[in-house]
């Protein structure tokens, strides 16, 4: 009764192709966006920023980037951590070299550098398919990890190759660095994420998105109907790497504030982000963020749940439980609903359309 499309007739293709053709969808999304921009700056505590909001935003963006490559274009990548590193170190070098440059521009430049590397890594994809391509991304990741540990110039000659977010401000408000106002940082990140999210949605529902999905579903047929395989794949790598690079910049300069190369280790970056898109739903923009929220929140909930229940468990045991839970959920989702939480959400909406009728 609530969620009915009845009476919402479209009289033009333009109306049919809107981002949110169903009115209720549109209100919910816009409402949610207003909520995101207004409520946390008013009420969120620093803990909530650090533990929930910053990670979901930065890792969600990384998941979005990976989803473009793996979910939409079918090119599996285990190198997410490497590209986050490229973005982070690029942003660091650029902002330390040009301290007055607006940080939005810094992020975009960092993304562009990451995109260039992405194109390079993507070049073998013409000859190498599927699963073997994962190995080239592994090669890239390990090489990048090695490089950031060796090339002193990248971290401005810091002995432990540490980089971080130096103090920066915008319109007089401190937005980066130890003095920065958490709400300001949050708004900056939110702006970047929302802008890139909408951009991704536009790309995905047009010609380029269709080309990617065509390559994913049947690359030979795609080529035979005129889609240029190398260009399409390289574009996927480029755009994906751009997003992941920007997410790396956000991750380090805004969220963690100071990292050494260990932060980009494959088991703590590439794999969790891959899990995010599997759980959230391959080939879904919203799914990337749902997956990120899930993976970020579950440990937090677990860590707070046991003390709340009065059960005293050591933190490393909680970590083991997390591993088991994530592993189990990955398998569960892949068996039951490979399209992840996003699809489950769609099913809920479909049921809502009929509610209170059973069918």
């Amino acid at each position: 009764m609530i969620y009915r499309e009845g009476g919402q007739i479209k009289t033009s293709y333009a109306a049919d192709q809107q981002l949110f053709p169903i009115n209720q969808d549109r209100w919910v999304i816009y409402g949610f966006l207003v909520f995101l921009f207004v409520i946390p700056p008013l009420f969120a505590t620093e803990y909530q920023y650090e533990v929930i909001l910053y990670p979901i935003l930065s890792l969600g963006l990384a998941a979005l980037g990976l989803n473009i490559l793996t979910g939409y274009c079918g090119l599996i990548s285990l190198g997410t951590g490497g590209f986050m590193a490229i973005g982070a170190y690029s942003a660091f070098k650029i902002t330390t070299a040009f301290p007055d440059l607006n940080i939005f521009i810094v992020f975009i430049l960092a993304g562009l550098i990451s995109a260039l590397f992405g194109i390079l890594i993507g070049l073998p994809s013409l000859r190498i398919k599927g699963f073997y391509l994962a190995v080239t991304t592994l090669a890239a990741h390990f090489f990048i990890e090695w490089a950031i540990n060796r090339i002193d110039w990248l971290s401005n000659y810091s002995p432990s190759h540490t980089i971080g977010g130096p103090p920066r401000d915008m319109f007089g408000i401190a937005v980066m660095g130890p003095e920065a106002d958490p709400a300001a940082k949050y708004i900056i990140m939110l702006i970047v994420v929302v802008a890139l999210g909408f951009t991704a949605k536009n790309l995905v529902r047009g010609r380029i998105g269709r080309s990617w999905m065509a390559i994913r579903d049947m690359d030979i047929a795609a080529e035979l109907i005129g889609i240029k395989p190398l260009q399409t794949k390289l574009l996927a790598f480029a755009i994906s790497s751009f997003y992941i690079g920007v997410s790396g910049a956000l991750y380090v300069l805004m969220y963690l504030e100071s990292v050494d190369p260990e932060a980009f280790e494959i088991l703590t970056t590439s794999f969790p982000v891959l899990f995010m898109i599997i759980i959230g739903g391959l080939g879904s923009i919203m799914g990337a963020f749902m997956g990120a929220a899930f993976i970020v929140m579950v440990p937090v909930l677990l860590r707070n749940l046991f003390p709340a229940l009065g059960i005293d468990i050591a933190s490393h045991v909680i970590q083991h439980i997390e591993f088991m839970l994530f592993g189990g959920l990955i398998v569960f989702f892949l068996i039951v609903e490979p399209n992840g939480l996003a699809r489950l959400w769609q099913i809920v909406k479909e049921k809502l359309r009929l509610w209170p009728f059973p069918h």
Partner: protein
Amino acid sequence: MNKTVSQDATVEQAIAGRPDHTADILLSVDNVSLNFGGVKALQDVSFNIRRGEIRAIIGPNGAGKSSMLNVINGFYHPSEGMITYKGEARSDMRPDIVARSGIARTFQNIALFSGMSTLDNIMTGRNTMMNRNFLWQALHLGPAKEEELAHRAKAEEVIDFLEIQAIRKVPVGRLPYGLQKRVELGRALAAEPELLLLDEPMAGMNAEEKEDMCRFILDVNDEFGTTIALIEHDMSVVMDISDRVVVLDYGVKIADGSPDKVRSNQTVIDAYLGVSHD
């Protein structure tokens, strides 16, 4: 887009009203051979396709018919011989370049993009004609949006023509076989090809579905003058709708001419009845 043939017209009536063809040759296959390691898929095959005609390619299983289409498409490169299309001769060309030069096809085992809807699949057929770059696409404003809407309109014409409006948003993986074949035809038509290659478009269909498919094929040939090369096993369909027929057997051409001539050719009869070869 109007139909000159009404919904209820029979196939025979449609054939009766068709025009003669010019002698203008659209595509010619010259001495093409195709080898895979030790297997000779095609041996020294030559034939041509005239502009505006419906050319059937028939032969027993394994005769090399799909391989022939794959060569025309650029997916396989002939070991010997040339393909001349619109006056230009070539022996190997990238498949996507072939597609952009006006050749579209359907496949024996449906090659639809299962993760996308009917409409999206048909829109991929318009891909070669869309070229606003990704920056415009990212903003989905102005030129990119206009382009998308213009092509959407064209895709809808194809959907109307094939009478598949009801399933336009359904993911094609969920459609029954006959409808999938129709969507695949739609994707090929969306590219507005000059030459349409159909690989067993009626395989697995019942009599009614075949009539519908025949009607569509004839309409495409009539309405748009599209040249059609057709692989088909159903002899009655071949005899009824094609202008000329070429027969392959074990990769070799054994007959070439009008349906009647081919039907009464002893070599052809032997091939189908399985008389032993050397």
